[in-house]
């Protein structure tokens, strides 16, 4: 029930922002549309929590999520600058390759989010996830080392700790 109510409120607020004003007809049409979407697809938007935690844990997770945004953009901009540097070179000096990096996350949302963050950062690109060995296959534009710990430190350790704390 909480799942459905939160999905309804989220959809209605997105509708109000996209329509640009708050008036009676916007609210009527918006709540009708959100109600239909909520009835059919509410289990796709939010998941139900399995273990109960006290409320300040969720507040802490939300604060960490907000703190993570500038960290991510700092990493993304520094990675984008190094990819741009490769674009301006006369002779290509990089060494592309596909490497396998093990991860310690187990939660499905966390795994998906980590894969998307790796893809979003310029220079690394997730190709696949191996369920058996719990490893990502990552295309890396400039393979600098083949040692496992070094590779992990360079590609995913900067996001893995944040995701591991937020989605546990």
């Amino acid at each position: 029930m909480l799942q459905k109510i939160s999905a309804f409120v989220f959809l209605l607020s997105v509708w109000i922002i996209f329509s640009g004003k708050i008036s009676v007809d916007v609210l009527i049409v918006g709540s009708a549309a959100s109600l239909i979407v909520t009835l059919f697809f509410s289990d796709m938007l939010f998941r139900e929590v399995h273990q109960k935690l006290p409320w300040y844990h969720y507040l802490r997770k939300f604060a960490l999520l907000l703190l993570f945004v500038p960290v991510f953009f700092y990493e993304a901009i520094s990675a984008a600058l190094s990819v741009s540097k490769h674009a301006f070179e006369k002779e290509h000096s990089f060494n592309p390759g596909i490497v396998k990096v093990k991860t310690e996350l187990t939660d499905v949302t966390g795994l998906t989010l980590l894969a998307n963050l790796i893809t979003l950062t310029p220079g690394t690109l997730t190709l696949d996830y191996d369920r058996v060995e719990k490893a990502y296959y990552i295309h890396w534009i400039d393979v600098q080392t083949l040692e496992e710990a070094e590779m992990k430190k360079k590609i995913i350790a900067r996001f893995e700790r944040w995701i591991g704390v937020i989605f546990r």
Partner: protein
Amino acid sequence: MMSLRLVISYFLMFTGAFFALVTVLGLLRFPDVYTRIHAGAVVLTISGVLITLGTAIYVWEFFLSAKVVLIGIFFLFSNPMATHAIARASYSRHIALPEEYEIDAYSEYLRRDENANT
């Protein structure tokens, strides 16, 4: 005060346009499909977000800015899925195989799957 806001928004938009230009250069100059996808990842992550942020600061009205920022967040959600789908399909359907790579752990993984199935 108002001109400071305009200066910040112009700075964000011009930085975004610069990164878009770099993306075009990278798309033309990089050697194969996967490295070109890397160049394409720059434009939506960095320059899409910078241009939407600059536009949101430029219009500076609550609903319009929120709308523009929501479009930027949608970029951030849809970009990695499209990139990942293109790269994985072009690898596993043998459309563009990177045969000259020295380090290629993914081909071993695919071969292991084929052996397990037969």
